[in-house]
């Protein structure tokens, strides 16, 4: 069935238009790969029938690893035998998604030998995705990859491939070294990454400043977002330069400050830093004039996830500010405690964010031995249903509290 002349009138439509076409990519791959060819055929059928043609994933993988491969089988194997197996491989990308042309070509060569020649650069979690191969190729791919210095990413109930923004490599606002931390955590947690043993997945994402260019607060169980504790660095002349070039400092900057902590008298920009929320807006708009302070570190947040099952969550503050320096002890210590508690008491398929909601943040903090601080909440409780834990005993008199 899978011949090179299969008609794909629907998909051909998607070769038109100015945005680069994934159909062209598949067709490009299909020149060499029968898998890509059959993918095209099956996809055309999906477009006609308005339904996917993949079966519920099966468990496949490489020896000794519990994740990194997503098994996939066509439900039309007779019609499209070359995609009867069409597994994807998740390959841990280098932090910051930097490559040399050489490294890319190496990856391409391996994948051309063993798979469809189609990739995602990259998957939503951050991995290099090799899109479509069959079970017998898994081990060879793996050994060729490792020989070239690459390893698999996560899948299943494990640590997922940590990822980070470009950070100090190319950004003036990075408040800590996102790439170094990402690499360090990835290496430290190789076992947890490759051998699922948690109640569910656990994702790390590192952003160098509150702009959060890897969307860590929306999609990682632990979000580490750079910030500073001291005052915004101001270059007064540069402020005046922006003003003289036509920027309306009052309207563009001052009136957009969520903390309402700035004043502009036409000459000087005054920032009441003790009220500044580190939102980045003023810095974003005047990069030449303003910079984050010098006492830099990060806010560590916990618990983001997509909606399934208890509703989507954003990460929330765990440590308002910590210094981020190797060997990253504070982070690793708390991670160890969190995993202990969650592995012990978490339900199957319960993300850490849901777990915290179920047991209560206060109880969770006690379990991981972190002191509650006001920064952890948007506001204190509104309901009066307080589980008071201190009280007086009749015979003790009023002096001692429990």
């Amino acid at each position, binding site marked *: 069935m899978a011949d090179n002349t299969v008609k794909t009138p629907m998909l051909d439509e998607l070769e038109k238009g100015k945005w680069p076409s994934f159909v062209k990519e598949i067709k490009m791959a299909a020149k060499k790969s029968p898998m890509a060819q059959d993918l095209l055929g099956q996809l055309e059928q999906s477009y006609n029938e308005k339904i996917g043609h993949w079966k519920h994933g099966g468990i496949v993988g490489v020896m000794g690893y519990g994740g990194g491969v997503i098994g996939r089988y066509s439900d039309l194997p007779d019609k499209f035998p070359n995609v009867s197996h069409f597994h994807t491989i998740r390959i841990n990308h280098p932090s910051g998604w930097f490559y040399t042309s050489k490294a890319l070509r190496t990856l391409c060569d391996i994948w051309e030998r063993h798979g469809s020649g189609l990739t995602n650069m990259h998957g939503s979690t951050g991995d290099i995705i090799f899109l479509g191969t069959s079970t017998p190729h898994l081990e060879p791919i793996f050994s060729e990859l490792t020989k070239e210095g690459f390893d698999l990413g996560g899948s299943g109930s494990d640590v997922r491939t940590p990822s980070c923004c470009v950070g100090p490599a190319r950004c003036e606002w990075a408040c800590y070294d996102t790439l170094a931390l990402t690499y360090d955590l990835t290496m430290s947690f190789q076992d947890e990454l490759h051998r699922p043993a948690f109640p569910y997945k656990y994702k790390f994402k590192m952003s160098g400043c509150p702009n*959060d260019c890897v969307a860590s607060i929306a999609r990682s169980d632990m979000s580490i977002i750079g910030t500073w504790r001291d005052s915004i660095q101001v270059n007064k002349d540069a402020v005046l330069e922006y003003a003289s070039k036509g920027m309306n400092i009052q309207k563009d900057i001052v009136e957009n400050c969520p903390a309402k902590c700035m004043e502009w008298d036409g000459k000087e920009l005054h920032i009441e830093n*003790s009220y500044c*929320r580190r939102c980045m807006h003023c810095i974003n708009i005047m990069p030449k004039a303003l910079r984050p302070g010098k006492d830099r570190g990060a806010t560590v947040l916990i618990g983001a996830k997509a909606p399934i099952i208890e509703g989507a969550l954003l990460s929330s503050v765990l440590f308002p500010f910590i210094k981020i320096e190797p060997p990253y002890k504070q982070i690793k210590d708390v991670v160890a405690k969190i995993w202990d508690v969650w592995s012990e008491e978490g339900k199957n398929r319960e993300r850490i964010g849901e777990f915290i909601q179920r047991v*209560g943040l206060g109880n969770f903090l006690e379990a991981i031995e972190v002191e*509650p601080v*006001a920064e952890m909440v948007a506001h204190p*409780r509104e309901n009066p*249903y*307080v589980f008071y834990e201190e009280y007086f005993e009749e015979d003790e008199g009023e002096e001692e509290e429990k």
Partner: protein
Amino acid sequence: MPEAMQERLTDIGPPKYDKFLPPIIKENYGKWAYHEVLKPGVMVHVSETGKKLFTVRAGSPRLISVEKIRNYADLADKYCDGYLRFTSRNNVEFLLTKEENIDPLIKDLRTIGHPVGGMQNSISNIVHTQGWIHCHSAATDASGIVKSVMDELIGHFENMDLPGKLRIALACCLNMCGAVHCSDIAILGVHRRPPKIDHEHLYKTCEIPSVSASCPTAAIRPVVVNGKQSVEVIEERCMFCANCYTVCPSMKLNDPLNDGVSIWVGGKVSNARHEPMFSKLAIPFLPNNPPRWPEVTTAVKDLVELWAKNARKYERMGEWIERIGWPKFFRMAGIEFRKEHIDDFKHAGLTFKRSTHLTF
């Protein structure tokens, strides 16, 4: 009896309000053009017709004797052709048409011990409830605390020296009859021990299923004690709301040793600028210390002064805290943040800080 029933008036409803409206109001009803606050506790409403109505507002303890009401009536006769009203915060308002009567009235009010004020950017009366005066549920007294706090704050009642209005309310238990949950500062009576169950009487006085159902945290289960149907409370699930007691007298929570008061801040009701907000927990527990509850009065006074000093013009307590952030509020107020402050009820997750908007 049938005869009695027949002549008995029922369902007549309250007197129609217009029977009690002074002529100036009847004539200018709906025609008021603007008002001005002339001095603390005194304002004038000017009608489109040019007519002026003066209002003098006097503080009241709300719990008043018929003697006092007759005093009010006498003053109304003397200065207002017999017309007066009460406010939604239980102050009394004298409605004058003669400007020259204002000062004599104020003088007479002072003589009988009633301060004039509570208008505009001031602290008005404390909305409150029954306490030990009349309610079985009370975890604290109402009138005693209100009196003690207002004695401290009367300067802000008699002057308009604050950034905006500040509304204080008190409820003596979680039923919150004072609807304190949207107050700038709320004083709330709290229990801290689970119900003490009277197994001897429970089966006679209470329906076991409705008792179990009454508990928001499902802490109550049926059990048999000494051969009698009763209930037990899983203590670590109890958060002392006393809803079980409301439906069942045999589950008393009142406890002299552990009852007391919590302080909540930052609520508001009006739609002015910011939408209405609930109050949030500031101080989880202060002891009942009659007759003057010094810990409570000090705490409230400190909060008022902190806000008064730091808020911008028009900023209500909650608006101010929203601008500076709760962590900063806790630091400025010198209040320790504790586990109790963290919500753990149904929507707790939504109160977690889901951003990096932090001050240091």
